[in-house]
């Protein structure tokens, strides 16, 4: 199913004929299992990066027996080059609230939290008002569910779901061992659904438009559309909702400045795709998945500097608890510096690549596991820039 670039308008759509609250009213009349079936049928996968099927996540949590369950909206948005959640929070917060309420209804939760990146606190004033109104509306309708804001501590790793729970519980933001997964033991060790901001909005919209219409977009593996944060060497940076499954070439034709040599897909922890691979790289779970960040680099950029920046970022933002990540990141960073300076031979890059293989399978959380993505894709495609 060959796709081309197509702009869509689901997330930010303001449909005067059908407000989010109307969607909520209608959905709360439906049996929970039916909603889950719709979500599974829609093929919606998490938009926070890991791409777990949302319907299944809700189903697992629904199936857990517990008096207390939670819905958490992950609005930590720390991935460099990603700023779409901020836009969603600012423009269509009701759609998030509604998604959370539907989720609460499905799984049986009475409390929901929006864990918001500390840097977004400036949004809080207007958001709090809207949330208060929404909560009051829920109380009025007799819906036993309330949503609260929690402000993040500013560490990238706190966007990782289990570190986020630790942080919410007032502890150091260190990722936990898995299993148990959040659906079994999340916040306060209770069954928890944690979804990205955008994912929750899509759940609202799928309840609105039905799974069939959502499925019309995207590919078998990557249903629907997604919001992209486009930045870097592009004349038109910004937020765009695009159908999934397009080749990167289409993307660059639209957004490039004519001189793009590489695109970093998925932020610092994503993959770098060089020009020569643009046409056979698909944006989607079958190709290169992305949390939404698309950074364009033109020929004036040093890919050594790009990689160096990323590694510096990970060296600082690793929570530091596990060996492969804490020490591995430092070794990669110092390693490319040493190769650049000539203190280590170019062949040392191979030792480092082997190290990333270990980091990928032995680090405790997604942060350490994905540092190899930018490292290998940049080193493999731009070796000369790294060495000389």
């Amino acid at each position, binding site marked *: 199913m060959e796709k081309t670039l197509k702009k869509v308008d689901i997330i930010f759509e303001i449909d005067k004929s059908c407000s989010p609250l109307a969607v909520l009213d209608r959905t709360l009349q439906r049996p929970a299992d039916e909603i889950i079936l719709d979500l599974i049928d829609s093929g919606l996968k998490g938009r926070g990066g890991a791409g777990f099927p949302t319907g299944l996540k809700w189903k697992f949590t629904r199936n857990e027996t517990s008096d207390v369950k939670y819905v958490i909206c992950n609005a930590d948005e720390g991935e460099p080059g990603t700023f779409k959640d901020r836009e969603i929070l600012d423009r269509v917060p009701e759609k998030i609230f509604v998604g959370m309420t539907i989720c609460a209804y499905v799984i049986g939760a009475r409390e929901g939290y929006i864990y918001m990146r500390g840097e977004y606190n400036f949004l809080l004033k207007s958001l709090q008002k809207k949330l208060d109104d929404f909560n009051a509306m829920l109380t009025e309708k007799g819906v036993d569910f309330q949503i609260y804001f929690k402000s993040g501590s500013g560490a990238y790793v706190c966007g990782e779901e289990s570190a986020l729970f630790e942080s919410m519980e007032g502890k150091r933001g260190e990722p936990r*061992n898995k*299993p148990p997964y959040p659906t079994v033991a999340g916040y306060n060790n209770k069954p928890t659904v944690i979804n990205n901001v955008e994912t929750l909005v899509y759940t609202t919209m799928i309840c609105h438009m039905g799974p069939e219409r959502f499925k019309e977009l995207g590919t078998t593996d990557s249903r629907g559309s997604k919001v992209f944060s486009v930045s870097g060497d592009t004349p038109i940076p910004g937020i765009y909702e695009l159908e999934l499954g397009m080749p990167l070439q289409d993307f660059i034709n639209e957004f490039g400045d004519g001189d793009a040599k590489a695109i970093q897909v998925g932020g610092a922890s994503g993959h770098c795709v060089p020009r020569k691979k643009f046409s056979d790289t698909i944006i989607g779970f079958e190709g290169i998945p992305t949390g939404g960040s698309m950074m364009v680099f033109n020929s004036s950029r040093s890919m050594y500097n790009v990689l160096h920046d990323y590694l510096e970022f990970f060296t600082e933002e690793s929570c530091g608890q596990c060996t492969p990540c804490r020490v591995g990141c*430092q070794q990669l960073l*110092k390693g490319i510096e040493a190769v650049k300076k000539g203190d280590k031979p170019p062949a040392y890059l191979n030792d480092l690549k082997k190290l990333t293989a270990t980091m990928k399978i032995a680090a405790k959380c997604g942060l350490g596991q994905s540092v190899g993505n930018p490292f290998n894709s940049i080193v493999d495609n731009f070796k000369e820039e790294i060495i000389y």
Partner: protein
Amino acid sequence: MSKYQVNLKINNMPIAVEEGTTILEAARKLNFRIPTLCHHPDLSVAGNCRVCVVEVKGAKLLAASCATPVSEGMEVLTNSEKVRIARKHIVELLLSEHNADCTKCFKNGHCELQEIASEYRIGEHVFLDLVRPESKIQDISSPAIIKDDSKCIRCQRCVRTCEEIQGVAALGVINKGDQQRISTFLNKPLNEVVCTNCGQCINRCPTGALTERNYIEEVWNAIYDPSKFVVVQTAPATRVALGEDLDIDPGARVTGKMVSALKKLGFNKVLDTDFAADLTIMEEGTELLTRLKKALVDKDETVRLPMMTSCSPGWIKFQEHMFSDMLDNLSTCKSPQQMFGAVAKTYYADKINIKAQDMIVVSIMPCTAKKFECERPEMRDSGYQDVDYVLTTRELAMMIKQAGIDFNKLEEEHYDSILGESTGAAVIFGATGGVMEAALRTAYEIVTGREVPFTNLNIQPVRGMEGVKEATIKIKNVKPEWAFLEGVDLNVAIAHGLGNARFLMDKVNRGETNYHFIEIMGCPGGCLGGGGQPIPTSPEIRQKRANAIYSEDEHMTIRKSHENPEITEIYKQFLGQPLSHLSHELLHTHYKPRKRY
């Protein structure tokens, strides 16, 4: 409720284990050893070092075996190519940020990192050296504990120990990424924070990042100094653990060999803290009875009950920081170590015609907090520092090795006299509940004229490893002078490990209890699990030491403190009676509040 059995294969060998078992535990059942660093049997699971990773067929990621529960049909490989490469990388990474100058390190030969490194033959460093010069600046502020960040592998065993077992949380993780490390409140030196010097973190630190401050050289110097008369005292719990550092299995009683070794090391007299433990019982038992009388008969409102034991310097410092409003509940008795020192440099020095200033008192202790205690300003009542140097059980083992003594082949010898005679009541000081039991054996008999009503004097309800124990003893048919105690239910409680102590103190503070007497020991299991004992430690090892202590008790001819003939003598010739003026001067003290961080 019996748990489900889960079937799995490890290295192609089938095994069925209970649901919830970790891969690591299951592998151990099949005798497959998987290396670990952050895992410890006393602590919660961290899963951060990652050396224990194994391959689970079908999984993309390796699993940390210490943190991953088994599941039905799982096929695990503990030594596949992937595992070996990853594990070797992880050890190489750890070493790359490690100041591996093993020959200068106190942990050389006892280090878990060193062991794994040598197993994997990590020779030439593949990776760059990341040791930061500033990390090599040790924290030597504490008289008990040395912290060396350049040896730290961030396993957080110390942090979990201090928080989970001790409830102190003096150590914590600060910063993230490459700057992450183990630190104290506001990065203050250890001697300025709530650290109790208990040494439990040392017992669980896999490397040389946390060690006791050692005084081996100072003690050798004293021994070799002809102008000094060096006496050594040995705490109750050392005699059931020393063997562990000298190739003997846990649980062996090595009292006689230890005495013999100490004599060979050149100490002028080998004496026993147990003597002072008996002395403590005389003083503390009498103090308890006096307090009860003042409270029950004289209705003296200033008397604080429950009375709490004061033998454990880690506990005392903990109380000074955290429960300073209850310092008056603390018995005024000094610990046996300090009673010994005070008596040695007065009564004993006189007897053997040695000037106190020429006497050096060395203690062999299961405890690191004793190093701090002996330097306290309150502990100079002989006119000199009552105890000069404290060595841990571990340091003594090192001295024995340095001297080339074949410990196992030593003949058993007896303590010198005087200050060498002791009772079964004294030796059980080394186990949780022991001070309570010893005190009850004596106090009950003082009050009733009869032995405690327990088979073979063994007061079972106060024994065992439960975190907090309670018991009630009915006092009946008392002697006329103790009439006010007739029919009284004496309520006692016992806690070991400061986490349990905190739990019990909170209960007392909330007024939920009606105890008369509480025994608290700072370390899990009591002194036998002390921060100066041989490493490793685990619930099983501590249980074996406890068994040995109670067996030592049963082998003693005298098992009640008040029947120790040397105790009778010291009161007759020197102290007069318990709580006498001289006793107060030498054997009792008071403590002051400290800050809460």
